[in-house]
């Protein structure tokens, strides 16, 4: 991800240098980035939280002791106990199991929305930055038009058109999520495209497509990766907000936002129903914020202190 393109180091004649000084070989940019990243304990905590959430999401069926949608009317409204770690909800579903499956929903939404956004944003950003002119103008006006629309309103409008549900939430979040990535990519391309390594590549006849993907892309990935670690929790948060309003994920699929929304009416009596999902949303945000901070310090040379 942090590898410099061959053209960039061409002027330095990298290989003889490395032969002269074998220690240099170990200080690859990627390893340096990892050293900077792991030197900060908080970013490791963030990484651990995100890893834990991913684990819960992937192995939800193994972790959850009960089915997430199996009502047990004899065990409704239970407070946390040894059998039901986080109690049960109004129709006796094990709340811990629902929380675990909620991780799956959140992670799936956050990661896939951001993956789609990444593909669209990178492509359009590269095109806008490299082509310039009328293409750039059109793409950037589209970006402005969508960005000027408050995100939540955009999502609510589209979801009433499309109807609620996992797939549509994904579409709506991807439709707005690509904007910051596109802007960032374009800005990065603009700052890089007159660099010597690009000019050199162009001079020796490398195609524009190859310049974009083989030369520019690896050099602008650092900030983009940081933007993704900001985008994923934003998408998760937006999903929680939409599900909280009741137009996000459809029941019975559990979503933390939806669980908080449903428990709002009983919050005075059954504190656990509002607390655990909110804590999970908070934990997710916390994990990604710390991870993002660590990555920014490690990958973005300007912000290093």
């Amino acid at each position, binding site marked *: 991800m942090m590898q410099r393109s061959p053209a960039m180091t061409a002027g330095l004649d990298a290989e003889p240098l490395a032969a002269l000084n074998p220690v240099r070989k170990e200080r690859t940019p990627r390893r340096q980035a990892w050293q900077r990243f792991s030197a900060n304990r908080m970013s490791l905590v963030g990484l651990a939280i995100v890893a834990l959430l991913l684990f819960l999401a992937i192995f939800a069926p193994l972790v959850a002791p009960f089915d997430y949608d199996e009502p047990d009317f004899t065990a409704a409204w239970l407070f946390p106990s040894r059998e039901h770690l986080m109690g049960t909800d109004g129709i006796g579903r094990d709340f811990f199991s629902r929380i675990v499956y909620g991780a799956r929903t959140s992670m799936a939404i956050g990661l896939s929305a951001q993956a789609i956004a990444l593909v669209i944003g990178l492509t359009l950003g590269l095109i806008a930055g490299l082509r310039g002119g009328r293409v750039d103008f059109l793409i950037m006006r589209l970006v402005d*038009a969508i960005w000027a629309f408050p995100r939540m309103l955009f999502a609510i409008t589209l979801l009433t058109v499309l109807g609620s549900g996992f797939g549509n939430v994904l579409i709506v979040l991807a439709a707005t999520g690509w904007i910051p990535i596109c802007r960032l990519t374009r800005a990065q391309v603009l700052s890089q495209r007159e660099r010597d390594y690009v000019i050199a590549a162009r001079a020796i006849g490398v195609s524009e497509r190859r310049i974009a993907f083989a030369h520019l892309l690896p050099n602008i990935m650092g900030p983009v990766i940081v933007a993704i670690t900001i985008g994923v929790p934003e998408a998760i948060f937006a999903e*929680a907000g939409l599900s909280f309003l009741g137009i996000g994920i459809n029941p019975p699929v559990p979503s933390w936002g939806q669980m908080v929304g449903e428990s709002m009416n009983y919050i005075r009596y059954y504190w656990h129903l509002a607390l655990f999902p909110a804590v999970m949303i908070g934990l997710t945000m916390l994990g990604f914020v710390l991870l993002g901070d660590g990555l920014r310090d490690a990958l973005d040379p300007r912000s290093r*202190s």
Partner: protein
Amino acid sequence: MSQFLARRLLAIVFMLFGMSVLVFGAMRLLPGDIVNLMVGMQSSASAEQREAIEGQYGLDRPLVFQYTDWMGGVIRGDLGKSMRSQEPISHEIRRKLPVTLELTFLSLIFAVVVAVPLGIISAIRRNSPVDLFARILGVLGLAIPNFWLAIMLLLIASRYFHWLPSPVFTPFFDDPIENLQQMWMPAIALGMVMMANLMRMTRSIMLDVMGQDYIRVARAKGLSEWGVVVKHAIKNAGIPVITLIGMNAGYLLGGTVIIEQIFGLPGIGWMITNAIFQRDYTTVQSAVLITGLLFALVNLCVDVAYALLDPRIRFA
């Protein structure tokens, strides 16, 4: 400068045009139209009745004409009438926009008043208890979902202080105290994320500035630490912080939808969501356009202020 403004205003016009097409299109695509909702449950509603309603709103005309009718009105300053209440939309916006603007403004004040001093102090006293507190607050502020915070504030107020704001909204100029009692909780819930962001940014910018050569020079020439901070550091850290405040103002404006819903505040986000559910096409279109215009103007002001504050920035 005037060329820059002209270009930006032109871009805003383009953007509003794009937005108007998007919203217009989205509203026509909504499943179930206003005619269905108006004839309601009467399945006996005849075709003539439907046609009469459609004719009344011009919904039987081709889409292009419907669009130009609406747009023509907007350009002449007529936002049209609500399909529901028959009231001019501009009246409703004039009633509801101030609520959203006040909420945004109060959140902004909360965020700035807490974040900027805290960020500066925690940067100067790095690794002190204040710094630790500020950093924890910064991370928590980002991590806590704002809707949950909103509910928690309401819950704590009612449970432990046996106090809840009046459910009927009072405009600020009718009764400022009553109004502020209703607004402080939504303002904190909405402003928390921005407070955390702003505080983190202020802190890191101040840390950055404090490491610069001119700070060392100021210290070397014997300036007191207080003088260094006030005269040199804050002045230089001010520009990026002010930009951030501006950028976030727009963000807050859009983030009010959920908060307005939880606290039952009759703002513009609430108005638009309601209109969407009622399929009140014209209201949604016009209200969204006004929000977009406001958003764009705020951003333009921020850019201009940025360029005026920092001589290195040229209007390009």
